[in-house]
């Protein structure tokens, strides 16, 4: 039976990839443990690598985990496989026309298709971010964000914004959704999470370093349950 490892896929990032060089990031290495042997719900391996490289340009590794180390790719995978990817909250009746920037999302495809097409287009035009060095990766991503261009039939600037949005959500959203592993994002900024009662302290000029707890916090630990993990059927299932 073929063994699947998300971590193996995501670590194929070549030079300046997921370096795991810093000790604090090591904790996040365990982030793959829960979902590691679960095949992607939506992404292909190539898409997952591409996204890991892309998102790690947006939120790179420093004293705190990078986007992919915090589970952002797992988060995006789950999102694209579920309501958001399928177009929840999107009016998808035609006709579809190119609009002004002020008119927002006008693509004639749902986010999952949009992102899939964009990545395919990028790979087609030789922009396999995963194999580039750090500088080249950053400049390609910057081009996506600034230059008006069609990639894979999609508006690259608009897809950039969509991916940036997903990256922030994956880094800072409740860990239930697969990202923000071990509360990496919340610990970085100092956000205590879903359990909130501040009446006695709101007017105090003090540091309030409550360790973060999410909606599905596992009692007695520093971790949260994760939706992706609960969807697991074990290896030999």
């Amino acid at each position: 039976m073929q063994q699947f490892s998300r971590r193996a896929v995501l670590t194929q990032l070549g030079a300046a990839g997921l370096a795991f060089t810093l000790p604090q990031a090591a904790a996040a290495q365990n982030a793959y443990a829960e979902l590691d042997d679960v095949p992607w719900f939506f992404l292909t391996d190539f898409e997952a690598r591409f996204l890991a490289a892309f998102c790690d340009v947006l939120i790179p590794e420093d004293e705190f985990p990078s986007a992919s180390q915090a589970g952002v790719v797992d988060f995006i995978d789950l999102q694209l496989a579920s309501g958001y990817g399928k177009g929840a909250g999107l009016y998808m009746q035609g006709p579809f026309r190119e609009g002004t920037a002020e008119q927002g999302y006008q693509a004639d495809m749902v986010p999952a298709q949009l992102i899939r097409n964009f990545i395919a287009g990028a790979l087609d035009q030789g922009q396999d971010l995963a194999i580039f060095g750090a500088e080249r990766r950053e400049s390609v991503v910057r081009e996506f964000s600034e230059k008006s261009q069609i990639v894979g039939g999609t508006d690259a600037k608009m897809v950039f914004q969509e991916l940036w949005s997903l990256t922030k959500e994956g880094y800072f959203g409740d860990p239930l959704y697969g990202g923000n592993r071990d509360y990496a994002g919340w610990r970085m900024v100092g956000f205590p999470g879903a359990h909130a009662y501040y009446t006695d302290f709101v007017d105090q000029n003090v540091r309030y370093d409550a360790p973060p707890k999410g909606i599905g916090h596992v009692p007695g630990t520093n971790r949260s349950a994760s939706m992706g993990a609960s969807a697991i059927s074990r290896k030999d299932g």
Partner: protein
Amino acid sequence: MVTQLPKTDVVIVGAGWSGLAAAYELANAGQRCVVLERGKWRHTVTSFGAPEEHDELKYARRKEHMIDTPIKTLSFRNNSSETALPMRRLGSFLPGKGLGGAGIHWNGQLWRPLPSDLNMASHYSDRYGEEILNGLSVQDWGVSYDELEPHLDFFEKVCGTSGFAGNLNGDTVEGGNIFEGPRSDNYPTQPMNSSPPQQMFRNTARQMGYHPFQMPSANVTEAYENPYGAQLHSCTYCGFCERFGCGYMAKADPIICIYDVLKNHENFELRTEAHVLRVEKSADGKTATGVTYIDADGREVFQPADTICLNAYALWNVHLMLVSGLATPYDPLTGTGTVGRNYSYQTIAAASVFFDKEVWSNPFMGAGAMGVTIDDFNGDNFDHTDLGFVGGGYISATQTNGRPINYNPTPPGTPAWGREWKRAVRDNYLHHIGLTVHGSSVSVPQNYLDLDPTYVDDYGQPLLRMTFDFPENDRRMSSYVLSKAEEIGRNMDHVVDVGTVNRAAEGARYSVVPYQTTHNVGGAVMGTDPTTSVVNRYGQMWDHHNVFVFGACLFPQNLGYNPTGPLMGLAYWTLEHMKSDYLGNPRPLMDA
């Protein structure tokens, strides 16, 4: 095949703040009321409990409590020369859905209009000369502050509003909002607490000669019983206010404040999952006969009624009038017609203040209406001579939340993403506050609502079409008031940097993408002249005397305040006249 039901006294479209208030008042006045709500039933206690409710992704980003655009949305363009396209995804404003409507996920910032706001046109003309209003379609409301005062007061009590009065029966009180209209009574609960940056804003504003006060708040600060007998509890400053329901029962919402004490009344019937398609008119068109709706099983049903109340969200009220052929639609080319005319919004800007490590803002400790505010640049509270605009806005150091997906402020010059961005986010997250500029919005002939020629909603009806951009007047106003906010920011202690954002900056077109406010107003304005208003000063349609309209769609232009307080003052004013005058003798209450 339409099912016809037995007639009821009153049919009310929409179970939000104004719909439930109408149902309470009219049911207790002996009127049999049927309330039709498109969305589902829910309850504050069981539907909005922590910690599940405290999910930023689900409620603030995926907007779980808001209208689903596949079911109901509108089309948008900046001006008539462009083609409107559907607003496919929510952004700039977030209408609600379900029992309680937007009243569930509002912030609770609860204001009154200034006396001069209500006769904006005559006030500015008298003080500065008519020319100051050139190019604008600003109008008087037709009702005065003194007439509304008891109703504004009543709604504040329904909500248990917390605050500190600045004008009690004509006497100004130091520490409150000295610009506010005279109040007959104090606020029902104590003012909210303030965070360290808010305390600093208060001190600096005072030193600069301004008049800071605690923002009036429907996040209740102590155990409270409202005039209807409903119980509210005190706010925990949990930082999950706007976009969320309040399981603590501390944010006034229509379910706890009204529905809970109304639900067993013999004259009250609520039908949820009932989508109103049309208001039906009599043969001679002078009255309405009832409404047609799609029920939960998808059947078309006609509910006849003697009196019809339109209490849907402001935009959907206008839409309903347009698809029902009520009154006459506005035509921007000829300037005739009234429905859809004078649509306006809110003009938002902000100064972003960054502190050194001595000041802990702890942004996650917040409440929807926890704010220290100055009104010195709102309305006509300051001299507009030679400024080139009318209107203004409040400046408020508001601390509503620190939810990290959306809240990651960085100083000016920080890149938009990447290594430096990441560092800047964590260096500044605990040491920042935003000073909101909540500016008014004038009406102009080229901003309006009508029906889209191309796109339809889930029920096959044409989408509402919105044509809107910020008028020049408001760009000048916003820039001016923002400069004042920035100045206060720079004068505060321990400040290392101040950034600014101005949605109505020169050259920035209005976009439906970034969130601004859910303050869509106008389109069915009230007034004393039927050629420029849809309803008379009692909220009664000129063209159909048994149709009463509620909500911010009545505003001829928008104030520098959040609309809920003023619109509910108008609602209770209308209800008063329905009960004491109209219902006993149905007829037009005003001559044209």
